[in-house]
Structure formats: structure tokens, C-alpha cells
């Protein structure tokens, strides 16, 4: 089983998680988002569209680097940060 990874949640998505930081599992970003959606139904489609693209004003960072490819690997100790573009603040705030 893949390791649990820390995911920082953008404020518009906290109505799903109830927290600004959650744990999810997956060895790729796609797998991690699928796990996140299983835990918090509906959250994935609000940031990933039906053509499997990250929505226009959403951004995902892994360890501080922007990631657009859902097949990007995720490993133990990684930190995934989901933010809304431009007007979004730190998921920690």
C-alpha cells in the first residue's frame, strides 16, 4: 500500500474536508486525487475537469513545484498543496 501523504487544501475546498490539511494515499497524483475523492466525495471534479485537466484557476504543487501532469509520482514524505490560482493564499492560512 502506498504511504500516506500530507495534502494542504485550498480554502474553497475545505467545505469538503473540514480541515486545511488532510492525509491521502497514492503513488501518483491521479491516485492520490482518487483517494481524496473517495474520502471526500465530489472534491476531485471541482479541481479536475472531465478531460482530466487541472481546472483553469486551480494549481497543484508537490514539494513546492507546480505539477500539471496527473501521472506525476508521489512518494513518502512529499507534501501536496492544492491552491486556487492568483487570488489563492497559502493553504495553511
Amino acid at each position, binding site marked *: 500500500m502506498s504511504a500516506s501523504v500530507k495534502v494542504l487544501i485550498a480554502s474553497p*475546498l475545505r467545505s469538503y474536508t473540514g480541515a486545511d490539511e488532510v492525509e491521502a494515499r497514492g503513488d501518483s497524483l491521479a491516485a492520490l486525487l482518487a483517494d481524496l475523492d473517495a474520502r471526500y466525495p465530489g472534491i476531485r471534479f471541482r479541481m479536475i475537469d*472531465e478531460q482530466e485537466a487541472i*481546472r483553469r484557476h486551480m494549481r497543484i504543487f508537490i514539494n513546492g513545484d507546480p505539477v500539471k501532469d496527473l501521472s506525476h509520482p508521489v512518494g513518502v514524505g512529499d507534501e501536496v498543496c492544492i491552491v486556487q490560482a492568483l487570488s489563492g493564499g497559502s493553504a495553511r492560512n
Partner: protein
Amino acid sequence: MAKARPKTKSSRTKKPSRPKADGNLLLVATRKGAWIYRGNAARNTWRADGPHFLGQIINHLMLDPRDGKTLLAAASTGHLGPTIFRSTNLGKSWEESPRPPAFKKQEGGRTVKHTFWLTPAHANEPNVWYAGTSPQGLFRSEDGGVTWNEFSGLNDDPQYREWMGTEQDGTPDGPKLHSIIVDPRDPQHLYFAMSGGGVHETLDGGQHWKPLIDGMEVVGGFDPKTVTFHDPHCVRLSPSNPDRLYQQNHCGIYRLDRPATRWTRIGKAMPAKIGDVGFPMVVHPRNDETAWVLPMDGQTVWPRTAINGEPAIYGTSNGGKKWTRLDQGLPKSQAWWTVKRQAFAADRGAPVGLYFGTTSGELWASRSEGKSWSCIARHLPEIYAVETADIG
């Protein structure tokens, strides 16, 4: 739960001291959330219930008239993708659709930016709903709005895709499929309209569609035979005569009496200084000769404001042969708002109550079929849609 108070003789025999409250509903969808206004029987007192979904863009909020308690809300935000929220207790609690309207995944596939329009299906098809999206797509739910699927093959039909055009062909807020209409006599007989892309009809439950654009005009210099150039803003079926359609178009006000297929531009009877450009149109629930529009300024860069800053409803009581200005109670000057295509509605009262919400966040009501108006709410966000419901 509070314990029921035992009935006394007086409580059983005493007539109600006031009309039943909260039986009339106004479902108000805005740029920043939704509100439900609950009106008393006299429709002169309204209580705000909201905001629901504060901060979310709500394009449409609809009650299922078949059960009187299920609400669907078409939602998105500036950043997040679109979804549908559903309540089965008139908004006391909400659940999100696990599968909202979305195009199929395919090479070059489209993405739903927002669901724009919600229509409950025929009375004999409980739990069936239709949805129109931006960019133009037609979807159907058969489980009360919980899950949605593309409907009828239309979304991938090459001819219809050509007529829909690209997102670049649409308005800044995106091209839309709207005005989904179900013939109350036949659940297989449907209409919808696209901005842009014309008005369309099926007689076989969506297996085949055909355009209904004869008689509709387009912007000067373009060919009216080309479906994609047509921009119907709002199509309404007369509740008392399902063979009569009214339409407010980018290029005029029209009427169509079936089985004819050619629209008549009844807006030519509007005063020349007002013209017949606008977004919404409303038809009387019991009189197919009576309808109302709210003209707007469609000149030059399309200000989309009340003409001269002097808003007015125009009503007809003879199918569009003559129009009467109805502005008593409305601002006399310097009111630069307008009303979007879903934001004008009628109830089924006698006389009919009319309601509209403005781009400046005001909610106006008339209990006199438009003869006089009063503002029942101010300072709301930009209003996108107003629907009525009677749960008396």
C-alpha cells in the same frame, strides 16, 4: 423537537388570524449564493432564507413541482468546477451530486464550465430532470438530480457541434444551452434554445432534433438561414396553450403558434425608441395572449442596461399586437440595471404576481400583473435567476 401543544376548543374553532405564511416561494440565484424568499398568502410580506452557498455562483435554483420539496441548485465558483446541489427538504440541508453534468472524456473533448439551466421533466416522469450547460450541452438525470448523463447524442452530433460553434463564438460568459421546455401533453416533445445556435425541437424524446428558426432575424450582414448565427435569449411556452411559444431574442421579440414553424416578430409593435431587445420573457399562466418583457439597451457595445436608465416592463394582452409600458413604482431615472434571462418570473396567483431580480441585486414584485411595482429586497449580489413556487 418541540412537544405538540394539546389542542383546546378555541384553537380548533378559531379561524386563522392571518393568511398561511411561507406558501409562496421566490427562488433567487445570484453571483454569490442563493436565497429563498418565503411570502405570505397575500404576497405582501417576504422573509429571506439565506444565503445558501455564500460565495458560490448559482446560475439556477429550481423546485421540483412534482413533489414540492426537492430543490436543485446549479453551482460553481470562480475557481472550482461546476456541480449540482440537491435538497429534499426545501433547503434545510443540501447534498452534492456525485456525478454532475460533464461531457465524456475524449480527444478534443469539451469541459462543462457551468450548468446554466435546470428543467424538471414531464409530470409523468418523476425524478427526471434536464440541464443545459455552458458551453452548450444537454444533460438528463433520472434519479432526481443525483447523477447526470449526456442526453440524446446531441452533444457530439457533428451538425449540432457546428451550430454550437466554439467558446470563442459565444458571449464573454460562455455560450449557453437554455430554455429547455417540456410539452405538458407529451414528454417526448421537447424544445431547447442555444445562445448562439437557434431554437430546436424533438418529437421523439431526443432521437431526432430539428431547428425552428424560420422568421427569426440575425445581426445585420449575416445569413438568417445559418443556424449558428441565431441568438434566442429566452423561449417560453404558454402554460395555458402549449401550442404557443414566445421568444425574446437578441434580434427581437417573437411568437410562434404551432404547428406553424415560422416565428412572427411581434416586437415590431414595441415603441421605436424602446425597441425589442432584451433577455427575459414571461407568459401569463392562464391567458396565452398576455406576456411581459423587460427591454434593455442593445446599442453599440451592448450596455445591457435599462434604456436611458429608466427601467420598465412592457406587457401585451393581445399576443403582441400592442405593448403597454408598465413602470409604476420603478425608478424614474438613473437606474442602470437590467434583468437576465432567467431572472423574471410569474406566479399562478390571481391577479398574477410578477417578480424580477436585477443585475444590481434588487428584487422587485408586482401583485397587479405589472401595473405597479415594489422592491422587496435590496443589496443582494447580482441576480442571475428568479423562479416562483407555490407550496401552499
